[in-house]
Structures are given as structure tokens and as C-alpha cells.
């Protein structure tokens, strides 16, 4: 390394020591086993991975993937029109709109999850309102259901989707649309052939962020879901902080990262298919 790039040395050391090495250790531990006290025993085997193929865990992981995909799809459906609206609004509206979608990005997700406890619990805001209006006679059980988990996930991660899409729409060359309408494409056609492919990078970034974050999020399920709605991240978390089965927790982490990478690659491939062959918008 040249003298002028010595400034990188501390960072490289730091990230190696506290990012790369720990992750390698986790991969290593996934091939170990544990003793009765929960200590890791250095004995190479694939038991931890074998445990994963228990139908119980396979089912949980399947549920997690479904939940993450549904969350991502819902976030995309809700976010794209909103981002589009703000990006195409007048300058004043745009400034306000951007501020309004940036703020929730920086509000702690714990707080935002907690907000739904306040709203959905038996004596919560929603039930009280419905009772007062006479729609229901008995409070509804909304908290600790799968629906509450999905709602919480969408609510928590929607800013992760809106912002990248907004950035992509904003950076898109608006002259392209004028050129398209000059060539006779308007409305849906120009949206489908120009806008959507041009904002692909934003959709990609947003979807990856939402998908990975949903899969890795144990707090929403913990707070809004019941015991039965545990997701893979809850299992991982409990292997490290409760049950102390590190090899199993490590194996699940490795599986989580690898399947996420595969799904992202598949999604990326689907996005670059026939209709979406525009070059990266960023």
C-alpha cells in the first residue's frame, strides 16, 4: 500500500476485526456442536444444519419468507404511487413531501411498533372507537395475531421503500418522458416503458432493504405477534440470548444470509428481463 493510502489501514483493521472475523467465527461455529452447559465444542459436524430440516423449523422459515415477500410487495404497492406523487408534485410540495417521508425513516422502529400496541390492544384506540360507534359489542382480538405482525412489518419498513424509489424518480431525466410523448407514448405506455425501467435501481434497493430487514426483524413479531407467530429471527435471537445453542443459531444465520442472497439474485434477474433492460439509473 502506498503512503498516501495509509489512512485506510485503521478502517480495514477495524472492519476486519469487528465485522469480517466475527462473521467467519459464526460460520465456523455453525459446524460445531455444544455441550450440556451451552458451550461450543470444537468438533466438526453438520448437526446444526440437520436440525434445521426438522419440519418445525422448515415451516417457520417458510412462513418467514412468505411474510417477508408479502411485506415487500405491500410496501412496494403502497410506496411507488406515493413516491411518484411527490416526485412529480410542484417544487414546494416536493420539499414538504420529501421531509414527510424522510422523518419516519429516522423514527426508531421500536417506537413505531409500540404505536400499534397502543392502537390495537383490547382497550386500545381502535377497539374503543369501534365500540363507541356501535360496530362491535365486544373488543376484537387484534394484537398478537399474524395480521398485526404483517401490519407492523409494513408500517416499520415502508420508509425503506419510499425513499429509494423517490430518489430514483427524482434523478430520472424528465426529458425522457417528453421524448416518449413526442414519439407517441403517453400515460401507461410511457410509464411502463420509460419510468418503471428507469427507476429499477430504486425498486431494487427498496425491495432488498425491506426483504432483508423483515427477515431479520425479531422485535415486531416479539411485540405484536403471539407465541405462535415466531419467525426465524426470533429463533436465531433465542439461540444466542436464551437457549444458548450457538451452533444452531449460527447455522440458521448462515442459511438466512444465503437464502436472502439467492432471492435477491433471482429478483434482480427477473427485474433485468425483457421489459426492464434500461441501464442502472444511478
Amino acid at each position, binding site marked *: 500500500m502506498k503512503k498516501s493510502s495509509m489512512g485506510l489501514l485503521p478502517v480495514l483493521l477495524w472492519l476486519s476485526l469487528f465485522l469480517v472475523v466475527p462473521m467467519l467465527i459464526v460460520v465456523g461455529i455453525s459446524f460445531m456442536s455444544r455441550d450440556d452447559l451451552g458451550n461450543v465444542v470444537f468438533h466438526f459436524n453438520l448437526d446444526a444444519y440437520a436440525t434445521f430440516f426438522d419440519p418445525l423449523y422448515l415451516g417457520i422459515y417458510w412462513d418467514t419468507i412468505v411474510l417477508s415477500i408479502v411485506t415487500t410487495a405491500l410496501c412496494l404497492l403502497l410506496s411507488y404511487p406515493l413516491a411518484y406523487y411527490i416526485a412529480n408534485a410542484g417544487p414546494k410540495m416536493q420539499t414538504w413531501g420529501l421531509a414527510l417521508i424522510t422523518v419516519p425513516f429516522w423514527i426508531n422502529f421500536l417506537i413505531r411498533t409500540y*404505536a400499534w400496541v397502543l392502537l390495537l390492544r383490547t382497550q386500545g384506540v381502535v377497539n374503543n372507537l369501534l365500540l363507541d360507534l356501535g360496530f362491535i359489542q365486544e373488543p376484537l382480538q387484534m394484537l398478537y395475531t399474524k395480521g398485526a405482525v404483517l401490519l407492523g412489518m409494513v408500517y416499520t419498513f415502508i420508509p425503506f421503500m419510499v425513499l429509494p424509489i423517490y430518489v430514483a424518480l427524482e434523478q430520472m431525466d424528465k426529458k425522457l418522458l417528453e421524448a416518449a410523448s413526442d414519439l407517441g407514448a403517453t400515460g401507461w405506455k410511457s410509464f411502463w416503458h420509460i419510468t418503471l425501467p428507469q427507476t429499477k435501481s430504486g425498486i431494487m434497493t427498496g425491495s432488498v432493504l425491506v426483504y432483508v430487514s423483515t427477515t431479520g426483524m425479531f422485535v415486531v413479531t416479539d411485540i405484536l405477534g403471539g407465541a405462535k407467530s415466531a419467525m426465524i429471527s426470533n429463533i436465531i435471537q433465542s439461540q444466542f440470548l436464551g437457549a444458548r445453542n450457538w451452533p444452531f443459531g449460527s447455522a440458521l444465520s448462515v442459511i438466512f444470509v444465503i437464502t436472502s442472497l439467492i432471492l435477491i439474485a433471482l429478483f434482480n434477474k427477473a427485474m433485468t428481463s425483457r421489459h426492464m433492460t434500461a441501464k442502472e439509473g444511478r
Partner: protein
Amino acid sequence: MKSKNHPLLGIHSLLVMIFIYLPIAFIIAYSFNSSRLAADWSGFTFEWYVSLFSNRRVMEALSNTLIVALVSTVFSTLLGTMAAIAIRKVGRRSKAGIGGLLYLPIIIPDIIMGLSLLVLFTQFHIPLGKLTIIIAHITFSISYVYVIVTTRLTGMGGQLEEAAQDLGADAWQTFRHVTLPQIMPGIISGAIIAFTMSLDDFMVSFFVSGPSSTTLPIYIYGQVKRGISPEINALCTLLILVSVTLIFLAQFVLNRGKGQKKRSVLPF
């Protein structure tokens, strides 16, 4: 540009905005509700804010949070800025590799980062506490500082530094009189982001904190799991206020100076 949005798009956007803000509005409103238990409104009060500041555990968590945030901000700002400056001098191939490594903390899920650090600290018998939280926070904050300072450096271009050298400045003088003043808004803004990230972090801290190093988000988590309380509403309201203020400050600082392209403090 004239707005050419369809009215349905406007209605959709309004509804999504209400969806995003209404729940938060309820937290803020209930933090001023004088009733401890009921969901009904029973009068305005500051009582919960007062009791928050006399709660010893909250104050302890606050002090832990601030210590962690301050220390991790200083180190991550220093390391991230150094990296952003130095990476310009390396060859293209190693730049791609090192740049990828510097992005990694933003990409990898918090839970993976948290648990792998827990494993590291346990394996090397480092007691969990403020120190381990600080190390974890530095690790992810470096990336955010790096990204923000890098955008500022890219915006500056190479010519200003060449001009300084041409006028007789050596490497240090060029850095001191030209590069540093030019990227200062990026550094300050990066530091504010690092501070906010640290203040807000729950996932990573949850894995690497010890019994005596509870931070505010960890405290909130514990309380939320027990159910709702008006003090938590007040605490959440304050935290929202602080984070949002800091972010707008960071955004403002980054885009200070005329003729600059507007930049975002977000990593994409």
C-alpha cells in the same frame, strides 16, 4: 414544473401519509394524557415528562446512551473520514473491494451484526458493557460517515487540490486549507448521522449490552414488552423529537453553501 398527478394518486398518497403518521401522532398525544390507564382522553398534563426525569433508571439509560453515542461518534467520524480521503488514492481494483467492505455494515442485517459481535466478545472473554456497545456502534457508523464524506469529496472533484499544489501547497497544506474546509459540512453531517444512529440503535446493542449498560432503546423495549405506560409515551416523544431534529440539522449542514447539488444524508 406543473403537477401532472392524477387525483387518485393524490388520495392514495394522503392515505399512506395518514397511515404513516397517525400512530405516531397517538403516541405524542397520549404522552400528554392525564389518565394513566384508560385509552380515553382525560385532560392535558406534563406529569409523565416530569416523572421521566425523576426516574433513576431512565436517567441511567440516558447517560449510558449519551456516553456511547458521543464516544462512538468521535471514533467513527475519524475513521470514516480517513477512509473516504484515503480510498481515492488506491487503484481501481482494490477500490472496489475496499469500497464493498465499507458498505457491508449498511447491507448486512443488524441481527447478524449483533450476534456475530456477541460471539466475538464472548469467545475472547470481553465483558459485555458500554465498551462493547461502543465498538459495535463504531463498526456500523463508520460506513455512514464514509458514504456522506465520499459524496462531498466527489462533489469537490480533484481540481481544487491540484490548484492548491500548483500554487505551492504541500500535501498537508493542501489538506488543511482546501480539502478539509471543503468536506467539513460532510464530516459534521456524517457525525450527526453517526450520533443519531447510535442514539436509536436497538438491534445491535441488544446483543452486546450487559446488565449495567442499558441504553434508552433497550429500556424502552423492556417496558414495551410489559405493556403500555404514559412515561414510555413521553420518552418516545422525546426520542422522536431529538432524532428528527438531528436529521434535519445534518441535512441542512450537508447542503450548506451555494451552487452545490442537493445531497441526501441517506446511504442510497
